[in-house]
């Protein structure tokens, strides 16, 4: 009996695919073990478990109306990140007009289920007709955007799609104000309805979005493991080699565009029906950055990464940042965890954290000895930290602004230093960060949120380009 050599995969198995799975690098230590264990369970059971958790959270724990809204927002963002992952993560096309497809879906749904067209009655299609229609429309639109720009690479594609996204906002603002409503948008939309079912409660929308997320993940997983998915990755890695291997590069790129657009339009339709209104500003650049932050943080190219990144970014920024106390927990938690991961060995870590605490008390004592106004605190949200540790002067705005600029300079300087100087500089940087946070950032959550989004993109790309969950692929040279 012939013994098959161990290093060749079984008959009928694509060797390149088998090898590419092996090339994946696991995380070090126990996290790698968790990863391996999760992979042994298999993909479909894992999806089932995740969906079950999603169903049980509102049932068992019970969410209040604010938490349900946060859940809806984060599920929307997860779906959007999932769709963006197709073009950015898998096919490697930087699509900066993605938000326009989301807007197209929302506006399409709005027109089909309001009194805008054919007044006074308007048209009120059921959701099972209007949502598929806007999805097909968005897919065609995706092809229309992708078709002329299929030969553009990288930056050119990025700028053309960004123009497309900006043009969408201009279009909805200025063109056909009777139908599209101009800057005032369209309101009084129907909720999702059809076949004698009407979804009006937030919890209902939560389940709808959860179901859509799970279905999209299932469909995309099947696509990912099909010829199409492999073709996308081949085109991402090397279009020239892919075309030499008879992959129709242009068609494959267009498919990525169209599928991403369809998912975005689906999310847009549900968003419009849940909000019962659409406005041009809903589909502007800040939301695009939010989607990108979710995708990049989770790890572009990994589907679970995109979903979890979307959920985490949305939950942290929309859910916790509203309340100063909770935002504080997250802020200090992230700092401590980052230090835990980045500063080694343990003695150094202890020295940095302990040093920061002691440094804070010393500075606070010195400053309060000189002037009581300088530590007069913020009358709005006075916590123990404000009172005894961080400096929050009577005029926190000016102090916070200057402190923020100095903090940015310190962070840039940290990136340039090495060794002991770096360790020493971390202490005042952390302390200043906490002062600026307490004095200024926590009082303006709307702006803090945007600043954090920008920071997430920069820091993730520099420190961990594969995202929090994505596994690094070993480069083949």
């Amino acid at each position: 009996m012939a013994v098959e050599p161990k290093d060749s995969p079984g008959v009928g198995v694509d060797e390149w695919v088998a090898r590419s799975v092996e090339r994946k690098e696991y995380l070090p230590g126990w996290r790698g073990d968790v990863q391996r264990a999760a992979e042994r369970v298999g993909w479909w059971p894992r999806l089932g478990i995740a969906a079950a958790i999603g169903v049980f959270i509102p049932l068992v724990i019970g969410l209040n109306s604010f938490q349900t809204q946060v859940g809806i927002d984060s599920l929307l963002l997860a779906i959007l990140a999932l769709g963006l992952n197709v073009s950015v993560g898998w096919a490697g096309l930087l699509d900066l007009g993605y938000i326009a497809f989301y807007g197209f879906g929302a506006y399409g749904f709005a027109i089909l289920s309001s009194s805008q067209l054919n007044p006074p009655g308007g048209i009120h299609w059921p959701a099972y007709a209007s949502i598929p229609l806007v999805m097909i429309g968005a897919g065609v639109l995706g092809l229309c955007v992708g078709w002329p720009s299929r030969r553009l690479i990288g930056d050119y594609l990025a700028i053309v799609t960004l123009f497309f996204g900006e043009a969408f906002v201009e279009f909805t603002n200025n063109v056909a104000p009777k139908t599209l409503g101009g800057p005032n948008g369209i309101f009084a939309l129907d909720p999702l309805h059809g076949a004698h079912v009407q979804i009006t409660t937030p919890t209902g929308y939560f389940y709808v979005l959860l179901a859509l997320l799970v279905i999209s993940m299932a469909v995309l997983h099947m696509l990912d493991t099909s010829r199409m998915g492999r073709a996308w990755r081949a085109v991402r890695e090397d279009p020239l080699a892919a075309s030499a291997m008879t992959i129709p590069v242009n068609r494959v790129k267009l498919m990525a565009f169209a599928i991403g657009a369809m998912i975005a339009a689906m999310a847009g339709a549900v968003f419009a029906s849940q909000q019962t209104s659409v406005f041009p500003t809903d589909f502007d650049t800040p939301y695009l950055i939010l989607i990108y932050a979710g995708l990049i943080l989770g790890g572009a190219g990994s589907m679970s990464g995109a979903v979890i990144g979307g959920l985490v970014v949305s939950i942290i920024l929309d859910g916790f940042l509203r309340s100063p106390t909770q935002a504080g927990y997250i802020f200090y938690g992230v700092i401590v965890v980052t230090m835990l991961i980045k500063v080694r060995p343990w003695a150094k870590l202890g020295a940095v954290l302990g040093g920061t605490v002691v440094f804070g008390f010393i500075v606070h004592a010195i400053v309060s000895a000189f002037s009581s106004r300088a530590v007069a605190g913020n009358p709005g949200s006075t916590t123990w930290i404000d009172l005894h540790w961080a400096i929050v002067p009577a005029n926190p705005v000016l102090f916070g602004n200057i402190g923020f600029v100095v903090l940015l300079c310190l962070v840039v300087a940290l990136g340039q230093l090495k060794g002991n100087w770096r360790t020493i500089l971390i202490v005042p940087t952390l302390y200043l960060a906490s002062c600026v946070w307490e004095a200024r950032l926590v009082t303006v959550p709307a702006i803090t949120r945007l600043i954090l989004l920008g920071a997430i993109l920069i820091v993730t790309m520099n420190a961990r380009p594969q995202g929090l969950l994505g596994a690094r692929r070993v480069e083949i040279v």
Partner: protein
Amino acid sequence: MTKFIQELVNGLTQGGLYALVALGYSMVYGVLKLLNFAHGDLYMVGAFIGYFVLQWFGGPTALAIPVPFVILAMFLAAGGGVGALGVAIERFAYRPLRDAPRIAPLITALGVSFLLENTVLLLFGASYRDYNTSAFIPYSTEIRIGGVNIWLVQIMVIVLSVVLMFGLQQLVVRTQLGRQMRAVATDREAAEMLGINVDYTISATFFLGSALAGIAGVMAGLAFNEIYQLMGFILGLKAFTAAVVGGIGSIPGAMLGGFLIGIAEAFITGYISSTFTNLIVFGILIVFMILRPTGLLGRVQLQKV
């Protein structure tokens, strides 16, 4: 005819700004092959620096020293400050990603742009700030040719942008630094092997490009008065396209593209409709980018394998 010339002058003013910002894009793209989305926001920062220099000298209505010196100080401060900011951004955000896949620095640039916009929002608020130029350069200081009125500030913007571009062209063609920049743009590895300090060259490129954007920001404040934290984003997009229209990497090309886009925009505003200006310009630019991505003066570049 009067209206035609008037719109032409307006277009040249706007076009000069596009051209200056486009130059920075083009230079950075030349050496790093990076589309620096933050470049438009550097222009915005320049406008803000100029504004605060103006306030520091007593504000538009009560200047402590003669007007030309104030304007010179504004240009110097904005050019130097924004140049330094550009160098810092390159060191901190882009340098670690120099050998990463192309998509990584692009996303980082998007993040830098967003961070800059919102830092300014945090520091100075969302309200518009007003240069109030007519208080120290009155509208009466204008040249009348026939029925056309050309304001002194418009002449200054047009002339200064042409002079700066000519100077930059000379720098790139004639000086040692310019030669190094061209070498790095052609082939970074080969340039490094020949002993060119690539890091220094890239930093210098960022400084020059960013300084031009900062100066353009001050000019925009002087010419259009209103400055706010989002003024740079769309302008940056258009300026990049101006660089592409002229042929990316080419200095006369960036100049030509900038003026063309500025004039096109002014004519659309003047003759068609101001509501649809952006929409039409975006449409033209998308079509141009798709049909002729090498630009008017650019050469077809073969992709290296």
